[in-house]
């Protein structure tokens, strides 16, 4: 390993530090590639099934490459069920939940981070404590309350809570707001700006990257949410994609036809995958930012 002249005699590939590192890196890449294959096989299997001829699905051994591929599976599957309806319902819920979460969380987080009031830290602690609670504890009374309000079979039970903040995102945003320099805020105050104005026209624009992170996580969580829509949306015209998907396997039109079922599943996973691929840097950036404070 040392660079002293004595070693010059036999610096083989196996003994040098460079060689060792190369071998370790090669091993790393091999293991990671194997793992990546294991991760990707289900995706491939989904797409391959979705593109197969109906007669080729139950073949032994399984056919890996659809021959010839049948893209019409997708159009067939999406017209067999009112998919556009489910997509629209999902879009409405996701859009409103996003709006509610972003506004309420950043609004509350600013108070926790930048203003002082008696009891503030105690409230913040209580908020953090809810992160440890299994949501099942509050499930039954919340359902009963929404039922009493007549909100069952509407989107309200899914959307309204989003406007009352989410503990984790409030925490994330608060951490970020605490790192912002106070000079900007001070000069705005000298110019006579109120706290609300400062939040709206100074803090919000500054927090775009964190808000993007919150938005990405919220999108994925809301889009994928199954339990909420399952218990609150009873009428199938109100279903979101996730719930509709779960009913397809039992439905007489789609269920038994694996190629159609996988086509719908593939389409249903597309939005989340796209958001993830397009917004990866926000995932990373957000994690770095929340980590700064430690």
């Amino acid at each position, binding site marked *: 390993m040392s660079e002293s002249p004595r070693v010059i005699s036999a610096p083989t590939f196996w003994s040098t530090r460079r060689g060792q590192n190369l071998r370790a890196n090669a091993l790393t890449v091999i293991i990671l590639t194997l793992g990546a294959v294991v991760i990707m096989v289900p995706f491939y299997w989904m797409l391959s099934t979705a593109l197969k001829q109906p007669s080729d699905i139950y073949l032994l051994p399984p056919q890996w490459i659809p021959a010839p591929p049948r893209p019409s599976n997708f159009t067939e599957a999406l017209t067999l069920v009112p998919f556009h309806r489910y997509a629209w319902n999902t879009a409405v819920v996701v859009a409103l939940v996003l709006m509610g979460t972003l506004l309420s969380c950043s609004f509350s987080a600013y108070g926790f981070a930048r203003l002082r009031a008696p009891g503030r830290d105690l409230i913040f602690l209580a908020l953090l404590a809810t992160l440890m609670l299994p949501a099942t504890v509050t499930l039954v009374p919340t359902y009963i309350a929404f039922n009493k309000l007549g909100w069952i079979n509407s989107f309200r039970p899914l959307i309204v809570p989003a406007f009352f903040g989410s503990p984790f995102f409030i925490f994330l945003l608060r951490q970020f707001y605490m790192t912002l320099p106070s000079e900007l805020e001070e000069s705005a105050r000298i110019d006579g700006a109120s706290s609300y104005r400062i939040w709206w026209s100074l803090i919000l624009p500054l927090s775009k990257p964190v808000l993007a992170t919150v938005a990405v996580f919220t999108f994925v969580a809301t889009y994928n949410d199954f339990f909420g829509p399952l218990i609150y949306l009873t009428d199938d015209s109100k279903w979101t994609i996730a719930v509709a998907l779960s009913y397809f396997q039992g439905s007489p039109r789609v269920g038994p036809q694996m190629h159609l079922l996988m086509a719908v599943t593939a389409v249903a996973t597309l939005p989340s995958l796209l958001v993830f*691929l397009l917004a990866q840097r926000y995932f990373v950036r957000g994690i770095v930012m929340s980590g700064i404070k430690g």
Partner: protein
Amino acid sequence: MSALKEPRVTVTHARAAPDRPWWRLSVSAREAIDCYVFMAPAILGLLLFWLGPMLASVLLSFTSYDMLGSPQWTGLENYRQLMGDELFWKSLRVSGIYSLVSVPLVLAVSLLLAVLLNQKIRGMYFFRSIYYLPTVMSGVAVAMLWRWMFNSEYGVINAFLSKIGIQGPQWLQTEQWALPALIVTSLWTIGGSILIWLAGLQGIPEELYESAEIDGAGRWRRFRHITIPMISHVTFFNLVLGIIGALQVFAEAFVLTGGGPNNSTLLLSLYLYRNAFQYLKMGYASAIAWVMFLIVLLLTLLVFRSAPFWVHYEQERRQTR
């Protein structure tokens, strides 16, 4: 904090001087009012969606309520019934086995992968994306996909097993293999925990490894004596999250097995769902929820209490230096 706040108060004070007298007196009171207004959504959310329902849930668990009539106070009857409910004990066992196997397995595999993904090799970004990919899929889609993969005759898993000379079991149709199938599925979506490990690994100062290497510590010893202690707070975090998460798994089990065959995958969350939304036994379901909560609380406390023995925090390290 206070160093950061003090100058601002005086500045506000200076601004407030020309205003009406009571403004001047109540600079901090005004700030407090603003602060409460800002915190209002969070406070209301806390009351309406956490504290209120929790209180109601305790009370409900002492009643019999089917959503039609009014709740009947039955005292401890629900809990007494739970003690003699065989299906409840079974679901407790199923959830227990699931968590006991799945949580450590996920933690170990995701740590291993995170360490590999943390190496400085070109193209690592690509691998990280791939490993995270399944995590953004919905539980329902994951379950649908794996249901088809686990298909005993035409599924890809048994096809692979038969290639290497193993006769694959009837995964989802047998009591023996349905729960293992669920656990395998949980392993596919470990991206979240990998991400948390990665964040922890990147917080370890490079110098520690360098000086250990100079001292002649090999890869394994560096991992054992630097990495493991230095990320123990992340282990703690992942462990607590893992326990809470494992006890709440729902969509995957609901779609993959629906609790069957013969209730061999009846997780506590599924049993709660059945009681609440199929049998409309709201009081009984609340009692189950509280038992679940107590278990989570107990486990979390256990992890917390054991933390001083194995979690090393940055500050301690600085003090002992």
